[in-house]
């Protein structure tokens, strides 16, 4: 970046964080689902923290 504007830098980080959140969300949910039991996966809503059934 050529100028040093704190607001521009904050906006850049916000856009990137939003982009990463959208891009990584399906991967995260897929991973969490892989650590849950069948009953937990089919519960509505599914829990969003990893469980204990990974192995």
């Amino acid at each position, binding site marked *: 970046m050529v100028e040093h504007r704190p607001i521009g830098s904050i906006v850049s980080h916000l856009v990137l964080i939003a*982009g*990463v959140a959208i*891009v990584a969300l399906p*991967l995260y949910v897929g991973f969490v689902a892989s650590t849950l039991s069948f009953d937990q996966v089919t519960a509505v809503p*599914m829990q*969003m923290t990893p469980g204990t059934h990974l192995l």
Partner: protein
Amino acid sequence: MEKRVVFKSPWLPYALVAPQLIITLVFFFWPASQAMYWSLLIQDAFAARTQFVWFDNFRDLFNDPRYLASFQITAVFSVLVTFIGLAVALLLAVFADRVVRGARVYKTLLIWPYAVAAAVAAVLWLFLLNPTLGVVTHLLRALGYDWNYLLNARQALILIVITAVWKQISYNFLFFLAGLQSVPKSLIEAAAIDGAGPARRFWTIIFPMLSPTTFFLLVVNIVYAFFDTFAIVDAATGGGPVQATAILVFKVYQDGVQALDLGGSAAQSVVLMAIVIALTVIQFRFVERKVQY
């Protein structure tokens, strides 16, 4: 003096290009010519009897309203996938190019989906958007929006567009980022000294200098939307509801492998091949002229 390298041997140059030629012949020209030949035949479902019917398959296709509907779906789908995919990836690449702190973390996280197979990508999005179990569906319900892509044709199209775009963002992002990093810093600094703000610098300097990258990605993304999205459609919607997401390449599979209409399916793949060849020729003829290398 002859500047080019000249092979004196009569056979060596042919031997050197032979591997590429043989691969092209065996894996492209042979299947393509078979498809063209089969598109002129009709078979019974067990391929026991075959009859030569000239262009009847093509005439049937273009009189079939469902096939014409599939054209429209494919057009909408590929325009949406290409445009949204390029726009989102360019936006993220521009901001990733600006930040200094944490840039590597952002880049790494944004490249992840490229390692996911298309069918798996569809399943991951089903976890979010399944009508009964989906996590996002639950949120949408709470907001009073009824999301059910199994019944709603438009929502089914939105689902496959989201999945196809998500899968392709990483690829576009990488190329845009590389393109942005090859824009000379001196030009941008000179424009900044002249008083041009970030938006003006982007549209008058960076975007035109990116045009070779954008053009390359345009061609790749259109071909991607036409062909590589088969697994997404198959895993996510299966062409439904009522053929609403049966894009051309999915219909080739449906009519050929599932319905065993081999001649009609071959005719569809010939039409599809002609469309993609035509699109690529048009892009190289007309769009490439606007590209500044």
